[in-house]
């Protein structure tokens, strides 16, 4: 499995069976491929509840796409709605889980995922609404940037997407839960050491008792 898919697969255990879930663009979109059949109702903010699998080559309907503008299908029981209604669902707290990507995450679990200082700020999409409105937010991201720099930082240097902290941060190496005291490391991927995570994480975090117990 490639890196993005490894991360996506690690998100699955955090999604309750039957939940209504919105998957952001990028790695979050891949989560769909790893969810057990029928485990969740996927909402996409361009106006569909009940996103199904990617269509086969002959089955593409140009009027049926997800928020990443890629072709999808609709499951039985799906419904279509206007953008204002879709964001009413999102802002109104009717989407249980949003899985979002992130450029940076701070020590309080707040994320930056829409703008980079020094570049023109010309796109935000639904990121701010999802982060404010979803009942639970899971971040799915590589542990470090392409240049190896830490993405989990004391403070974000990029503009925040919202003041709200996310609930879970999932990387290829580690999983953190977020509470009022900040980040808690709750899981290490197979073959990853606590030392590796400490070296590649620039924010303080607690380590769950389950991970420090003698083996």
């Amino acid at each position, binding site marked *: 499995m490639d890196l993005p898919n490894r991360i996506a697969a690690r998100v699955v255990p955090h999604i309750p069976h039957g939940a209504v879930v919105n998957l952001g663009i990028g790695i979050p979109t891949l989560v769909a491929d790893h969810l057990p059949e029928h485990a*969740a109702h996927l909402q996409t903010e361009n106006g569909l509840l009940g996103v199904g699998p990617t269509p086969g080559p002959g089955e593409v309907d140009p009027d049926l796409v997800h928020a990443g503008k890629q072709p999808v299908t609709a499951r039985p*029981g799906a419904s279509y709605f206007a953008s204002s209604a879709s964001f009413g669902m999102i802002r109104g707290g009717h989407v249980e889980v949003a899985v979002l990507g992130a450029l940076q995450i701070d020590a309080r679990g707040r994320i930056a995922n829409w703008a980079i200082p020094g570049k023109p700020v010309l796109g935000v999409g639904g990121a701010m609404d999802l982060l404010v409105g979803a009942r639970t937010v899971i971040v799915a991201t590589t542990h470090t940037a392409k240049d190896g720099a830490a993405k989990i930082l004391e403070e974000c240097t990029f503009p925040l997407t919202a003041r709200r902290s996310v609930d879970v941060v999932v990387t290829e190496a580690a999983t953190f839960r977020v509470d009022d005291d900040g980040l808690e490391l709750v899981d290490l991927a197979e073959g990853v050491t606590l030392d590796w995570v400490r070296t590649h994480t620039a924010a303080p975090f607690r380590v769950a008792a389950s991970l420090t117990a003698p083996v």
Partner: protein
Amino acid sequence: MTAPVTPTRPLVRGVAEALAPVRDGATLMVGGFGLVGAPLRLIEGLLATTTATDLTIISNNLGEPGRGLGMLLLEGRVRKAVGSFFTSNPDVVAAYQAGDLEIDLLPQGTLAEAIRAGGAGIGGFYTRTGWGTALGEGREERVIRGEPHVYHESLRADVALVRARRADELGNLVYSKTARNFNPDMATAADLVIAEVDEVVPVGALDPEEIVTPHLFVDAVVLSGRA
């Protein structure tokens, strides 16, 4: 199309089971325009299967004398009513004059908008309706594009009781003609949403273009007994 997502628990409940979470002092939204589109079986169930009292009812009207929400009023279960037209039920006027009922009167469009806003995560909004009238008095004013508006905060409830024609097994709802009225708005604006329907159909039986209330809004479905 692939198979549907299996519901995690049975959506269709008995009246008593569905209404069990209603607490004393709760705020309830109740659909309907008069008795048209009112969830009458659920309202009867509130009386017959719960002891919930001291209720705040958000509904366009309070039923008719001894019918619909009018029964709830006569049983002394209603502390406060938020709506737009109560004069068609003389019992409401009497209860108000006796000091037994608090009333918050809103223009009908403002009521509908405040419910829709509550469901859509909008904190409040400005409307021209009511500005410069007795119902606008004491409200914050704001001139927008040269026109005076008044501020209203959005409305939310603990429980919404709505009436639909048909549900599928996931809880997607479609309505019947003008019995739609406040029901789809209220179905978005409460922590617990219970829909009374005539009929439950299999998942996939409703046209995805035609569904008015997507299932993510609906927590429980009760049969009206009028299929």
